[in-house]
């Protein structure tokens, strides 16, 4: 059962391919796919609720959300497996809402890979070309190129059951990419791989996408995967897009409590608004605990605000820092989490906070239960989010 190392380590080294720059030219702003008010109902249940979305040419966009949020239904409508109940899907400006999957220049990498068990690897990859009546010579050439692209040279004659999970996945990519689709749809393609291989594949697929310049629409429930791979992320909840933006925007300035909580970890704190002055506002978390925050996302006349603070953005010090937004706290619990230490803090006797601090020394612990410390949070790191 031992396989040659070179077959397993595809993501780590690929001799036939030049290294790909981690970031490429700025993305085009042309629209490849547009969803206009797309709604999908199954019986009385609304899976997708009036979604508007513009997907740019050549971008890697991720639809991220918990299971049942409607992300897969959106993908299936893009593929043509489902027809929207209302609304339009435009592919390069053409309405394709009712066009069957076999007449769309869009291909999908399936979660289960769906490699045809009765066909060899080469025949699997050639399937789409055959259905499009590509002549035999060209078909063979393109199949070989595709095998090369995914570092499966010489695997053409193998049957799917002779391949490992990772290899099957590469066949699935080759089979979809060989058709040169306008858009490649990916339905949680890494969920069946173990953690190490998954991470390697994530980077490899991201590089592949940059190299080919094909628009990728990726569906996942794994927030880390989304952050690693995407140019933009659409966070989806209850059939609606909660927030759309670049990975860093979504992480650093979540728009809602849902997004803040779903992506990474967040302290969600409700605060009273004390006063607003121009671009900033003063809010009170508890007695004697006041913070200065950016007021741009605070609604007019509101007296309450919901704040999101990332745990690693809370700075812990022994001595009172000479900064604003600093307050005293007691360490209730300290949890070792490998690279980071998680500190459970209590502020003013009632407010609970979680902070992450780098785990710097292997020999001694910097923080102990019961320690009285100071927390400081930069104004930009306190994000006022919507309650949804």
């Amino acid at each position, binding site marked *: *059962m031992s396989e040659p190392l070179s077959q397993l380590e595809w993501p780590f080294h690929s001799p036939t391919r030049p290294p790909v720059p981690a970031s490429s030219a700025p993305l085009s702003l042309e629209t490849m796919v547009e969803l206009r008010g797309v709604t999908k109902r199954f019986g009385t249940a609304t899976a997708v609720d009036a979604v508007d979305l513009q997907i740019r040419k050549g971008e890697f966009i991720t639809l991220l959300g918990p299971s049942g949020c409607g992300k897969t239904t959106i993908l299936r409508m893009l593929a043509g497996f489902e027809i929207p109940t209302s609304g339009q899907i435009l592919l390069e400006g053409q309405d394709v809402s009712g066009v069957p999957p076999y007449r769309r220049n869009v*291909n*999908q990498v399936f979660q289960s890979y769906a490699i*045809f068990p009765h066909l060899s690897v080469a025949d699997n990859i050639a399937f789409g070309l055959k259905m499009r009546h590509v002549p035999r010579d060209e078909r063979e050439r393109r199949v070989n190129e595709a095998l090369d692209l995914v570092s499966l040279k010489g695997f053409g004659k193998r049957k799917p059951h002779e391949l490992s999970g990772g290899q099957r996945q590469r066949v699935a990519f080759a089979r*979809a990419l060989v*058709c040169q689709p306008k858009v490649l749809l990916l339905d949680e393609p890494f969920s069946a791989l173990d953690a190490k291989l998954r991470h390697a594949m994530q980077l490899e697929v991201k590089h592949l996408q940059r190299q080919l310049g094909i628009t990728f629409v990726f569906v996942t429930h794994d927030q880390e995967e989304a952050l690693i791979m995407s140019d933009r992320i659409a966070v989806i909840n209850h059939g609606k897009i909660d927030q759309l933006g670049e990975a860093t925007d979504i992480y650093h300035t979540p728009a809602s409590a849902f997004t803040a909580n779903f992506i990474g970890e967040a302290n969600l704190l409700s605060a009273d608004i004390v006063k607003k002055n121009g671009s900033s506002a003063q809010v009170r978390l508890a007695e004697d605990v006041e913070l200065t925050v950016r007021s741009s996302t605070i609604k007019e006349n509101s007296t309450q605000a919901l704040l999101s603070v990332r745990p690693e953005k809370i700075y812990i010090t022994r001595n009172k820092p000479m900064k604003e937004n600093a307050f005293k706290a007691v360490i209730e619990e300290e949890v070792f989490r490998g690279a980071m230490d998680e500190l459970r803090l209590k502020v003013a006797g009632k407010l609970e906070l979680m902070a992450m601090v780098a785990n710097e020394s292997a020999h001694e612990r910097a923080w102990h239960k019961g320690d009285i410390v100071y927390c400081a949070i930069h104004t930009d790191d306190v994000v006022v989010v919507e309650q949804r």
Partner: protein
Amino acid sequence: MTAIADPRTATASTRRSPGAAGWLLLSPMLFWLGLFVVAPTAILFVYSFCQRDELGQVVFEFTWENYARIADPVYLNILLRSLWYAGLTTTICLVVAYPVAYYIGRAPAQRRSWLLLLVMIPFWISFLLRTYAWISLLKAQGPVSALLQWAQLIAQPLEILYTPTAVMIGLVYTYLPFMILPIFTSAEKIDNSYIEASLDLGAGPWRTLAHVIIPLTKPGIFAGVLLVFVPSIGMFAVTDLMGGARVPMIGNVIQNQFGQARDWPFGAALGITFLVLFVIAFWFLHDRGEERR
């Protein structure tokens, strides 16, 4: 990295001889096979080389005569006709059963069990009763004839009973479930993503059927073809009852040797010849089936 093991390697490493306990556990099965399969076949084999006296008693004296008689054009014709009828039955069954089996296999779980029940219900009634039911349905004064005359589709009473058509109707009716069930089992197992992948790659519904669905249901098709073709060659009851014994099949001939003709050795020779033909046919089909996997 080797979490997903090659199934072939796995089978090879676990395949070994059964050992003492294994043989003990196998013994009821071996006993059963020996008593009901090997022994009767051996008796048949021995009889096929024997002679018979005037009263039809088997005389244990070696002869090739029984096998030589099979080459007689009379019997060869009957054999060819049987093959033709069985082939036609199998073809019609396949064409009729495939869409039905596929539909049942792809139906939602609850509806699936109801539909399967409908396929199975006829088995609860004796085969002979069902055949007699067909006879009274198809006879000239029967309801089918009356209905067709009432609808003015035919002028004369239906003259279908005791014709090859009636035999075909009987054979297809009898063996249809044996085609439906194995194909259903194959169709049920097809993961929907294979069909979607095919559509996604540009194959329309018909080409998806030809390039994905039929190849994936091949094991069921092979099983169904065997289950229909083999017994329908040897069938004698339907041909007797619905064909009025006017179109004798090889099954009727064999039955006759053990019955009225009282020529057991010749009947045994016919039976053994058939067995050999079936084994050859099965190997052929089986190998092709393996190749396709």
